[in-house]
Structures are given as structure tokens and as C-alpha cells.
């Protein structure tokens, strides 16, 4: 019986993925599939999250949502494509806060995300935790940072790539704590974790699912988000850190100048999808949360990120 159910659901998802579910809604938007640009590569967490929600949202939107991967130049290629697309609501982008708000302070960009793009919804967030190998002497973040302050530059922070989901929060914390560490770039979170295990670097920022699988080989010193993320590990907030944007926020953005009615339709669809059982179930299986934040609310956070990231980049690059 269970098997039959599973089969039915599987077929349903397959169909939804292939065709979408063009329900008989008498609306004029959307009347064709909506393209969702991902400015990141295949197989990353954005890709996986999007595969899940695009397979469900079609039934609430009335049209399928089609993923289009446009990686390159640390997210700039895909973002530029989204900015230059017509503001008709048929091209959206699934991005994160560091591409959206931090990048502009690092390099001169041919677009302005804040002016051109508006948040449809924040889908969920990924809280990172500071992790050291179990045989390191530091039991708390305080102890590690004390060591870092006494030995400027000795502490090695292995992150998952420039201005990415590990580097930016890590650099923010280090800046707030007044610690001067050596930053070592890696090609993704996997290699950075490997460097921690091999002892090539002292600490990294990793996501809870990765940390749990390491068992007692590593120790988490502090984590983003709320205390339920990693029970027993203090959160950055509890330790008194005030920087915002320490977590990776997965956000869906659309053109700011698209009709308000269409923004409303999209936001409603995401809101309804968030209550969908299949969606909840699939995201749980991926180990991701479904803490949705409505677009207008996220816009306020976005403005704060802009200011903080600007200060951070100025501090790090000395510009």
C-alpha cells in the first residue's frame, strides 16, 4: 500500500516536473512557464532546493517554473541576465544575500540589484556554524578568538570561496571580534571541511548536516540562526555578536518594475506552497528548513545588509 502511494506521488512529481500543472485559473498571469535563473552551478544547495520547490509550486502558480542554471563570475553572470530580462514576471532569480548585496561593494558591476530587483520571497535560510577539529584546544569561540588576538595572522580560516556563504559571515565575525586571521579559499564547503579534518586550516564555517555526519571528529563552537539548529551549541546572537546577514538567505527576486499584481500572485503562490505537505516533506529530507519570510519584510533586512557589507568590504580590502 505504502509502495503504491509512493509510486503515485512519484509519478505526480514527475509529471509536475515535465509539464507543470496548468490548472484552469482564469488569470492572465502567468499564462506561460516562468523561468527561474540560478546564478550558481549544478549540484549546489541552490540547485537542489530549487529542484524541490519548482516541482511543487507549479500547482499553486498555475504554470510550471523552469530552472535555468547560469553560473559564472561568482554569480554575476546570472544576476546580470535577471536584471536585463523584461520586467513581465516571467524571469525571476533564485539567489542569496552575498551575491545580492555584498558583491556590489567588491567589484564595479554593470547593474544595481537593489534598484532593479525586489524580493518576492525569502524561501529559507542556511545557518552556518564555526567548526574546529576535535583535537584543537579551543572549547569555545571566545578561547579561539583570544588565541587569534594574541597571535595575529596565525589562525587559519578555511572558507568555501571568495565572498561566499562561509567567507562573508566568517570575516564579519572576525572583524567584530577584532581578530586578524589568515583566510584560505577553497572550492566549496566540502574541500574546506576536508582541510579542517586534515589540519591544513584551523576552522571553517559549515552547515549542520555536514557537521552531524562528522561525528566526534569535529567540534562546533558557535552557530547562526536560532538555538534549535544545533542543540547545545551557542548561537552568534547568544554570544553577543550583532552583525546581521551571518546566515545564507535563499531568496527569490523579481524585477522591481514588474506590475504589483504579478508580485502579489507570485508571493501568494509561495506562501501557499510553504504549507504544502510534499514540499515540507521533501525539504525535510534535504535537511533544509522552510522558514519563509515575506518579500516586504526581507526588503528591510536587505537594506541593513547593504550598509553592513559595505563596511565589511571596506575593512577587508582597505578601499
Amino acid at each position, binding site marked *: 500500500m505504502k509502495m503504491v502511494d*509512493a*509510486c503515485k*506521488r*512519484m509519478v505526480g*512529481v*514527475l509529471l509536475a*516536473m515535465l509539464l507543470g500543472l496548468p490548472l484552469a485559473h482564469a488569470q492572465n498571469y502567468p499564462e506561460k512557464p516562468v523561468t527561474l535563473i540560478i546564478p550558481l*552551478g*549544478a*549540484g*549546489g544547495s541552490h*540547485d*537542489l532546493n530549487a*529542484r*524541490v520547490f519548482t*516541482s511543487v509550486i507549479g500547482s499553486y502558480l498555475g504554470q510550471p517554473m523552469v530552472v*535555468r*542554471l*547560469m*553560473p*559564472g*563570475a*561568482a554569480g*554575476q*553572470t546570472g544576476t546580470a541576465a535577471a536584471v536585463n530580462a523584461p520586467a513581465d514576471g516571467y524571469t525571476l532569480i533564485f539567489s542569496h544575500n552575498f551575491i545580492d548585496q555584498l558583491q556590489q561593494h*567588491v*567589484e564595479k558591476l*554593470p547593474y544595481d540589484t537593489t534598484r532593479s530587483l525586489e524580493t518576492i520571497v525569502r524561501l529559507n535560510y542556511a545557518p552556518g556554524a564555526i567548526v574546529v577539529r576535535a583535537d584543537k584546544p579551543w572549547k569555545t569561540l571566545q578561547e579561539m578568538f583570544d588565541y587569534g588576538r594574541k597571535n595575529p*595572522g*596565525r589562525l*587559519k580560516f578555511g572558507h568555501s570561496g*571568495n*565572498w561566499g556563504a562561509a567567507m562573508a559571515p566568517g570575516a564579519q565575525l572576525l572583524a567584530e571580534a577584532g581578530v586578524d586571521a*589568515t*583566510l*584560505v*579559499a*577553497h*572550492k*566549496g564547503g*566540502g*574541500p574546506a*571541511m*576536508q*582541510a579542517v*579534518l*586534515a589540519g*591544513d*586550516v584551523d576552522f571553517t564555517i559549515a552547515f549542520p*548536516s*555536514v557537521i*552531524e*555526519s*562528522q*561525528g566526534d*571528529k569535529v567540534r562546533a563552537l558557535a552557530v547562526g540562526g536560532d538555538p534549535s539548529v544545533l542543540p547545545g551549541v551557542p548561537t552568534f546572537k547568544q554570544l553577543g555578536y550583532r552583525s546581521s546577514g551571518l546566515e545564507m538567505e535563499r531568496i527569490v527576486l523579481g524585477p522591481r518594475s514588474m506590475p504589483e499584481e504579478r508580485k502579489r500572485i507570485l508571493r501568494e503562490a509561495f506562501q501557499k506552497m510553504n504549507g504544502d505537505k510534499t514540499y515540507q516533506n*521533501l525539504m525535510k*529530507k*534535504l*535537511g533544509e528548513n522552510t522558514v519563509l519570510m515575506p518579500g516586504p519584510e526581507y526588503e528591510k533586512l536587505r537594506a541593513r545588509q547593504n550598509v553592513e557589507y559595505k563596511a565589511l568590504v571596506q575593512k577587508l580590502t582597505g578601499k
Partner: protein
Amino acid sequence: MWESFLEGFHLALRLDTFAMMSVGLALGIVVGALPGFTTTMALAILLPLSFFLDPLVGIPFLIGVTKGGIFGGSIPAILISIPGTAASIATTFDGPALTKKGESRKALEMALFSSAFGDTVSDILTILLIAPIAVLALKFGPPELGAIILLSLVVITASTSGVFVKGLLMLAMGLFFGIIGQDPIGGVSRFTFDLFPLRSGIPLLPMLIGVFALPEIFEAVERKGAALFTSKVPGAEGPRLTLAEFKRCFRTILRSTGIGAAIGAIPGMGQVIAAVVGYTAAKNASDHPETFGKGELEGIAAAESANNAVNGPTMVPLLTLGIPGDNLTAILLGAFIAHGLRPGPTLFQEQAPLVFAILVAMVLANVLFIVIAYLTVPLFARLVTVRKSLLLPMTVVFAFTGAYVYQSDPWDLYLLVFFGVFGYLARKLRFDISPMVMGFILGPILEYSLGQTVSMSQGEFMHFVFVERPIASFVVVATPVVAYLLWRRVARLRRRAVVTASAESR
């Protein structure tokens, strides 16, 4: 250990596991054979499907897609000189020449059997040596990776066909093309001439299709299509692979399997490098290196067994450390987590039978793979026997759509044409294209690991590399020695070729 293995073996013998693995293999072959669609894309799209399956069905299903995809890429590589996935670049060195001789079926069957052999042996090695491989993987940090990449670059360039200086020049051009775009360490744009699309660098697949497939088309146009894709037996797909031919290539297959498995155990290398290094080693070891690149069956065996032999060991860091070594294993990690399994040291302690079951399924997948691929090969082989007036335009269509769907960026089409002309000129001027491609692929990895090593060394670079990293310093010291030995060998072979040529002319 042995008990968990036996238990795992029993777990893997399930009908639905086999059925879904077959579906995965077939899907993988088709997607891999379509130029521009990579195995990674196929895996990402099919991942949610596996959520609804039992772990022992869903994960083997995805493994089937991976295995099928890597073989599938060699089909267009052999038939129309378009690498279906980057892993099959070394297959384009000899495959199309065999197809032109009307031996496409033989070439495809060689690719199939050497792939299956390399895969099976590497999977079995993985089961036997999982613990040592895991230890080895942790020993290879950025300094070691950088040193090995340097060695590979030297070996590939030293064994280039034709004039050595020309090979070096092509290598330098490849390294230059690899520099274009955002610098991976500092994030600064280099050689982009302020053109925004160049910031992301030159994409690999459009470049490969450009340098390998377009020159074939230009040449066909030049000769009015006369010499392209002639099949000696019209309407048939050519002779089959004989046992004697397989035996002749067996040493090469064994060598390539070893090379592929070793490269698979080192995080950050991957199938593309394995294929080219395996090919180069076969050419160096051969007593007739001059036939390589001109339709040598052994070349296909060398490349295909090497790229598939990577499959087994790449699973080790994933299973034992919970760390995916490449995009494919990153998606598999997603599948494991979705099934409530957390790869890593704890998985082995708690679920050893299940891990073994998955490894056993990997071996069994190869048996299914032989059956499925063997049945489909004649169909694919027959494709090139359609009328020449249709095949050539079809190749053009596949080349352009393949380059476009890779990233859906129209800019890639300009780059495709640029590299097509580049490849054509190189061919006309007798420059070997492979050092350029390898420079392009390996250069950025070398640069990245060098940058990482510099930041890790905290200002004491020489001390760090030569005192704290013995493996890296050993490889760095060995590089010039290997280069000298290769150079001497190539020079001796060339002298011998000159002597025999003059003896014959007398």
C-alpha cells in the same frame, strides 16, 4: 567487516534495485550522448525522484545515471567528434578517425568494454582498500594537488606529438585562456577587456566542441564532404570488436585503470584529467606512438578505462568523510542525506552493511551496463551511416545547440566559433591541440592550489612546501627527472623513425 560485507551483498540483490539501476543507466547514456547536457545536470534533475524510492533503490539509480553518463559522452565523441561530456575529450583523439574508416561499431564496443572493465576493477579496489584510500585522500591538500598538476602538465607536454616547441606554445596559450576571467583568489577581472560576459571565464564545453568538432566540419566543407564519414560497408555499422583486439589492448586498459583509480583517490582531479593522463601514458608506453591520434583502437581503450576507473575511489571521501570530491558526488551526498543517511565516519560504524550494499550495487551496475550499452551500440553506430548530406548539417546543429544549452548564454556561440577557427588553424599548421586544452583545464587548478598554498604557508612558502609537506616536495623534485626521461625516450623514438625511414628510401 566480512560479515557486514556479506550482509550488504544480500541486501543489494533486489529486483527493484536492478530495475531502477537499469533505468538510470539508460537515462545516463542518453543524456551523456546529447552534447551540452552534462551528467551533473541529469543527476540534479533526477535527484528529487530518488527521494521517493527506498535508499537501496534510489542511490543505485543515481549511480547508474553517473556511470551511463560518462560512457554516453563517448558516443558523440567517437561518431561526430563532439565530446558529449568533458570526460570524453581524449576519446575524440582517435574515435572520429576510426569512424571515418567505417569502424564506428568497433570503436564504440571498445569504449564500452574498457569503460566497464575500468569501472568494475576500480569499484572492487574501492571495496577492498576503502580505509587506505580514505587516509590517502586526507594527505592530499592544496600543495600536493598543485605539485601533481604540475607533473601532469609536464608529462602531457613532453609527450606531445610533433615538434616539442609547438607543444609548449600551445600549452602557454591554454594557460593564457585559463587566466581570462575573474581571478579565483582575489576576485579581480583579468584580460576581460571590460567585456562583461568574459568575467566568468571561457566555458569548457563550448571550447572543447569548438576545437574538436568544428575543424572536422571545416575540413569536410573544404573537401566538399568527400572524405568525411565514409563507411566502407554502406548501410551497415562496420565490423565488431574481436577478442584478439581486446586482448591486444589489455595491458593499456590495466594501466589506465590503475591511473584512473589513483587519480580518483586524489580529491580535486577528476575524470577529465584521468582520461588525458591515461591516454598520454598509453602513447608513451607504446612502441608505435605515431599511430595514436590517427584512429588507434588502443587510444580509445586508454581514455575510456581511465575516466571510468575514477568512479570507485571518488566515492571514498564521500562515504568515509562525508565530503564530496566533485559535483557528481555532491549530488549523491544530497541523495544520502535525503534518505536520512549521513555519510561520514559515523555512517560506517552504524550502517556498514548498507554502505557495502551500495558498493556491491556499483559493481553489479557494471554488469547491467554491459548488457544495456551492448544492445544500444548498434543503434548509435548506425546513426553515422545515414546519408552524408544529412549527417554533416546534423553535426553542425549538435555542435551549436550543445554549446548553447550548456549555460544558455549566446556568448558561448561566439566562443565556439572562435575556438573552431583556432582549432582549424592549429590543425592546418600542424600544432597538437591537446596541450592547449590541458593547459586550459589544469592551469586554473594549479593556480588555485598555488594560491591556497601561499596563504596556508603564512609567508614561509619554501619552508612550508619542502619541510612540512614531504609528498609535495617529492613530486616537485621528481618532475624535472620525469620530464628528462620522457624527452630522451621521445627523442630516441624519433631518431629510430628517421633511421628506418632513410633505410626504406634506400
